[in-house]
């Protein structure tokens, strides 16, 4: 037999083990020694949240004329007539008798013109058919609705709504949903998911939390891992990202909607002036500034600012309320203003909270917590100790069984050493690819120790079939027969594990990864070398 130190399989094996040892060697850092291994939340401590984005993509089939007819006849209690005028892209509504000037506004149609014509009133609202349907959906669902496209006419509803609810609402105006999944599918568009993810990312990053992973699954689930944060805090931070709204006081306790958080394009850090008054400067979009000006003028806030407080709401909780500043009120009288400051007085803490609310109020959809949990760091490190013990005990147990089977140190030592080297290589690969080791993946490693040794037993027994190590051609034939069995077994294990990648939001991805990696490392690196080494050791002297 040739010198095994020149065998490429053996060389590759030793190089791989050496590389594994280098990768796993502890590196000194400020907080003592640490390895490159990354641990999952259940070993490191932290919490996780699984959120579902509430929403649906729908394709309604409804005549906007019916909608307007219903809305205006409900509002007036009289018969109305509605005409669509495509050439000027507006609807003309004729109501018997007088109609209030703000009726169209109240129903959500902006820039309406109201003209009395004898016994009737003509209301002209500049709107497209899609705009009317969207407005109807928004008001009857009390939810944000995003227009997606005209062919086919589709909308994204940004709240929790069922097909039945929506169909009931459309039935009131003689409409329906397109049949099948096209008409109603739960979930939101990719853009909306991205937007939501970005808002969450920014929010978490700003809090200075490290090691945060925000992942999106199936376009409607967002998974957040927060190392070192308790679940109560995590929920506080992300569980209920709210919908931000600015309202303006109309009369008494009533108020009207001005704009949502999506019209706030920029928020600056809170600033304090010399007298210790804190404020949060923010910038409105063009559309937002127009809406704000219109609301301020319409309610009379520009003239009588003290009676018309501006309030900010996060999830319908009031977070800020104050009258317009005098100079702002004066400016709004003549032009829309984009730049504003929300003054909170002497409380810098409150200014900071408002700052976060203002920035993050723009979370586009509501979310539902569908799963969450926490493991504290101390408990995690207990688990770490326990799994380390389990790993060591497994290798010892395996060594003992092998000893009883072969009673030959020349076999037992290389076998246990090979098995141990497989564990080292698996861990090194995990460290290199930054896989997180969690409890499940440790179970995977231990299971691979078990199967790995199985395969070493197959190799050994094939080679020693007649009680002694054959040489030359017979040795090679036996070795390839052993590898036939091993490869077949490895292939079945790998394919059987594949489905685990998708299960439970990838909770067992690490288990599947480490098991498959372990099987491959064993089959491709460790076991070929073992076959050569054991062949050489057991060879009767030539």
């Amino acid at each position: 037999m040739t010198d095994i130190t020149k065998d490429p399989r053996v060389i590759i094996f030793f190089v791989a083990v050496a590389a594994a040892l280098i990768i796993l060697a502890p590196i000194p850092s400020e907080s003592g020694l640490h390895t490159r291994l990354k641990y999952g939340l259940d070993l490191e401590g932290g919490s996780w949240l699984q959120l579902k984005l509430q929403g649906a993509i729908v394709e309604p089939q409804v005549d906007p004329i019916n909608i307007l007819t219903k809305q205006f006849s409900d509002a007036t209690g009289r018969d109305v007539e509605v005409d669509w005028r495509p050439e000027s892209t507006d609807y003309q509504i004729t109501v018997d008798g007088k109609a209030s000037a703000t009726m169209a506004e109240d129903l959500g149609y902006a820039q309406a013109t109201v003209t009395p014509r004898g016994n009737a009133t003509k209301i002209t609202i500049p709107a497209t058919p899609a705009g009317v349907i969207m407005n109807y959906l928004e008001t009857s669902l009390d939810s944000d609705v995003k227009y997606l496209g005209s062919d086919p006419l589709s909308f994204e509803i940004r709240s929790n709504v069922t097909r039945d609810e929506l169909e009931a609402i459309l039935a009131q105006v003689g409409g329906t949903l397109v049949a099948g999944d096209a008409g109603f599918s739960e979930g939101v568009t990719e853009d909306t998911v991205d937007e939501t993810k970005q808002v969450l990312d920014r929010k978490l990053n700003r809090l200075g939390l490290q090691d945060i992973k925000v992942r999106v699954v199936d376009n409607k689930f967002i998974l957040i891992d927060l190392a070192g944060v308790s679940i109560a805090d995590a929920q506080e931070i992300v569980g209920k990202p709210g919908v931000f709204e600015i309202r303006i006081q109309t009369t008494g306790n009533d108020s009207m909607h001005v704009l949502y958080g999506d019209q706030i394009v920029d928020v600056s850090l809170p600033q304090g002036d010399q007298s210790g008054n804190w404020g949060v400067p923010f910038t409105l979009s063009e559309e937002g500034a127009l809406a704000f000006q219109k609301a301020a003028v319409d309610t009379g806030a520009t003239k009588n600012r003290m009676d018309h407080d501006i309030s900010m709401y996060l999830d319908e909780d009031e977070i800020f309320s104050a009258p317009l500043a005098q100079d702002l009120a004066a400016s709004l009288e003549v032009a829309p203003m984009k730049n504003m400051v929300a003054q909170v007085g002497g409380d810098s803490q409150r200014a900071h909270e408002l700052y976060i609310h203002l920035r993050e109020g723009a979370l586009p959809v509501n979310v539902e917590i569908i799963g969450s949990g926490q493991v504290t760091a101390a408990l995690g490190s207990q688990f770490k100790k326990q799994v380390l013990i389990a790993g060591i005990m497994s290798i010892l147990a395996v060594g003992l069984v092998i000893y009883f089977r072969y009673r030959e140190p020349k076999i037992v030592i290389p076998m246990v050493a090979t098995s141990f080297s497989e564990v080292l290589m698996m861990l090194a690969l995990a460290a290199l690819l930054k896989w997180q080791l969690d409890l499940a993946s440790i179970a995977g490693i231990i299971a691979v120790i078990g199967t790995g040794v199985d395969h070493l037993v197959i190799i050994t027994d094939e080679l020693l079939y007649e009680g002694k190590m054959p040489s030359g051609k017979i040795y090679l034939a036996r070795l390839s027969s052993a590898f036939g069995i091993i490869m077949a077994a490895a292939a079945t294990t790998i394919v059987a594990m594949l489905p685990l990648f998708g299960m439970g939001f990838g909770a067992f991805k690490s288990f599947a990864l480490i098991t498959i990696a372990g099987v491959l490392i064993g089959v491709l690196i460790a076991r070929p070398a073992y076959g050569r080494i054991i062949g050489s050791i057991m060879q009767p002297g030539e």
Partner: protein
Amino acid sequence: MDPETFISKYEPKKMVAISLAVLAVALLIMGFNYIKTGSPVTLGVEFTGGTIITVPVVESEDELAAKLAAYPVLDIRDVGHRYMVQLGPMDDAEYKQLSELVDDEYQDPEIKYMGPVYSTRLQEQAKTYIPLSFLFMAVVVFLIFRTPFVALTIILSAFSDIMITAAAMDTVGVKLSLGTVAALLMLIGYSVDSNILLNNRVLKRKGKTEEKIQGAFRTGFAMTSTTFCAIFALFLVSAFSYLVSSSFTQINILFDISVVLLFGLLADLMNTWVMNANALRWYLASSKKATSRRQKR
């Protein structure tokens, strides 16, 4: 009796029948469980939805129950220096209150909440993925062993492994969790190991079938026992290490995985060496008869 002679001593048909009878009993147990709980394997909290908290033992179970009286507690168990509390459905506010209470009152609490959306999704996935995994394995087995009889016995044995393990889970009260599903999938891969060894040895080598089976059994038994011991170590640590140190506790997920793998390995021992080995003897004997009959003509 020596197990090596046991597997090839009796009439093959009888031995295969015994193994199939065990499979039938397993299916019956799962059938009963289905009638009782609506699922062939009792579903754990990940599949039913709910909340699990574990807290260190600092008081009696009754005191803990009193503290949590305002919440829908379903079950409190001592899992070794810690109590594991299972709770029914709660709304967001209640859950938040509970997590704050637990965080304030106890050191190192563990909390896990699985909402109905999550658990329904998981149930659907399990229904798709476990059969899918099995199908993948079957395809690979067919590709390796082109002989339908051989491939089918291997697949039947893997199927029987899973069913017997599932029935054993029902019997000892291990519920279906993500961990046990992972273990079952791993078992699908595992279970063909020893079968492939057996078939390779018996079909590709020359010699007497009985002797080849016995040789394969010696190797196969060593394989199963090493794996068994490795997993048994995991089982011991996850279930009993709390007896050694007061800071240790049971680790459910590892306990679940190890118990399933242990049952699976035992089932596989029977299905490979009692059922398949004898099915092979039977198959080889009848095909030999067929060839010799043909030769006589």
